[in-house]
């Protein structure tokens, strides 16, 4: 987990597998260092494969800044649980969190590279989404 701040868009990686999520976050850190706040979460509340909206919400809050947060998810349930997590956020934060329609690993790395340069949330997401056909 990298500390939020410096006005850069945060990255949250959500996978059914905690190992996949952690691994993708490691790759992000290798690319951009600690310059971009990045959090990863995976696994269901019982420790098996799946996703947990409460932990996704915590991950978003951990990297939150006014610049917003780009969220990357793997399969169907992860997207829905990320939506639930965004709806649980306080105040008007939900409006500055986007689920990017992009592959988790490549999307997160591309987005973090863009965010490191100070790009706005829309640009960060649009760049990652160029990866999707």
């Amino acid at each position, binding site marked *: 987990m990298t500390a939020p701040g410096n006005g850069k868009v945060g990255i949250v990686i959500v996978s059914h597998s905690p190992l996949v999520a952690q691994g993708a976050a490691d790759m992000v850190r290798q690319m951009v260092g600690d310059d971009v706040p990045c959090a990863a979460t995976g*696994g*269901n*509340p*019982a420790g*098996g*494969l*799946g*996703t*947990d*909206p*409460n932990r996704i919400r915590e991950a978003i809050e951990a990297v939150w800044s006014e610049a917003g947060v780009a969220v990357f998810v793997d*399969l*169907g*349930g992860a997207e*829905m*649980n990320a*939506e*639930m997590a965004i709806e649980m956020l306080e105040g008007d934060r939900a409006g500055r969190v986007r689920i990017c329609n992009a592959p988790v690993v490549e999307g997160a790395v591309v987005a973090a590279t863009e965010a490191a340069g100070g790009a706005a949330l829309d640009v960060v997401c649009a760049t990652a989404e160029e990866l999707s056909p």
Partner: protein
Amino acid sequence: MDPTQDLRRTLVRTVAERVIAHADELTRLDQAVGDGDHGVNMKRGLEAVLADLDAIAAKPLGEGLKAAGMHMVGRVGGASGPLYGTLLMGLGKALADVPDRAALAAAFRAAIDATRARGKSDVGMKTMLDVLVPVAETLEAGGEGVLQAVRARAAAAAAATAPMLAVRGRASFLGERSRGHVDPGARSSQLMIEAVCDVLEARP
């Protein structure tokens, strides 16, 4: 004790226990077309509901359903958590404490619409909606023996998902191979609806 509290407790307990009792069957169905976790995920969520049964039954119906929905969202961990969570919370938002059939039908329709939006899905895609929407139609039509009609419609609708081609969720990865199996979410929806009918029919 408030007599409706007793009914709420029986409803929630019966629905939860019915699905839990069929967890292995739901898992087998999900192994055929999905990732094999529907039974165990539903069981985990509904066990959290049962653990909070006293508090849920003590609330007005709508508030209790919202609380049950939050347990599903928080504990399930798969797609069925947000889907059933949205359904229950949608019902809770729309329901008066002692609804008549028309009020229940309207609330059910509103909850289904929320679930449809959550799953970005629709009827005919081999999902829980293929049971919920036909049941809503039967409930809206009302008439003599509506509970029997609802039960029959739910069973027929769940069975009718078997030949469907999955276009949402993990089952869609299978393409044509998704045909020939009842959708696990359609089956769990049928089980819940049957349990509700059982309780309502047994009322004195």
